């Protein structure tokens, strides 16, 4: 049995609580970092983290990138997307292929 966790500012994550996810409101990067580490040790398979928080702790997020679990997924918060999530996808393309062939139409 594995759980889904949500980390982010309270306004953005409260909605997820209603649908049965485990919600951890945080306000600072340090809190976000320690919560993420704690959840990763626990049996959380998917951890959603708001882009605004994720941007501040890229090193911690990178650490979980190549292990099968947990999947740390940046999501937009209520003020919209910052492009952090898409940037990660782009970085993957560059890492694997060497040059960006998917996004160059923009």
């Amino acid at each position, binding site marked *: *049995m*594995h*759980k*889904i966790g949500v980390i982010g500012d309270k*306004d*953005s994550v*409260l*909605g*997820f*609580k*209603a*649908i*049965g*996810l*485990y919600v951890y409101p945080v306000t600072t990067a340090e809190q976000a970092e320690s919560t993420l580490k704690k959840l990763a040790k626990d049996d959380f*398979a*998917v951890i*959603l983290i708001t882009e605004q928080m994720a941007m501040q702790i890229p090193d911690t997020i990178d650490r979980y*990138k*190549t292990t*099968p*679990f947990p*999947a740390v*997924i940046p*999501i*937009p*918060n*209520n003020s*919209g*997307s910052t492009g952090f*999530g*898409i940037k*990660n*996808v782009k970085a*993957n*393309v560059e*890492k*694997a*292929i060497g040059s960006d*062939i*998917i*996004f160059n139409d923009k």
Partner: protein
Amino acid sequence: MAVMRVNPTRMELTRLKKRLVTARRGHKLLKDKRDEMMRRFIELIRKNKDLREEVEEELTKALKSFVLARAAMQGEIIEEAILMPSRTMTLELSKRNIMSVDVPVIKFSDDNAENITAFPYSFASTSGELDGSISTLTELMPKILELAEIEKTCNMLADEIEKTRRRVNALEYVMIPQLEETIKYITMKLAENERGNITRLMKMKELLADKN
């Protein structure tokens, strides 16, 4: 390319030739692995991009409507309404093997009974906007999970492709040329020794013939 520091002997030559064969075979295999992973990766990353754009857009909408719902209601009431969720979403995990990379497969557990209502509160004290945003969030969850699965897969594949590419390049541009060079060096050295030997023998024969 530098020649390896080896003794120019026949034994060494046989050993190096064997290594060269192995290196070539490994190079071919790794190259095939890299190409196939690249193909899978490109498929997945396209899907990843589309899905992420879709999820980001819809999620932003859902969260915005949630904020509106919050604004329309008193803080305590909304907290009370969603404090105790009627169900918890749990996941079932398994693994899938893509070119010897173990990637996760994420599914909802079966015990998420569909007949339990998504709304953990009575409708009396809450606003309609809240219902709306919660039901969109519920509908979005499968997509978010799919995104999680694909994005994780892409992360892992990208990492593995990078590693494989390095190995391929190391074999192609360092190992194999070095081995070839060394084999050539040993062959030439052995041939040179052989020539030296023959000359010496001929000289000896001449000397002996003169003496007699």
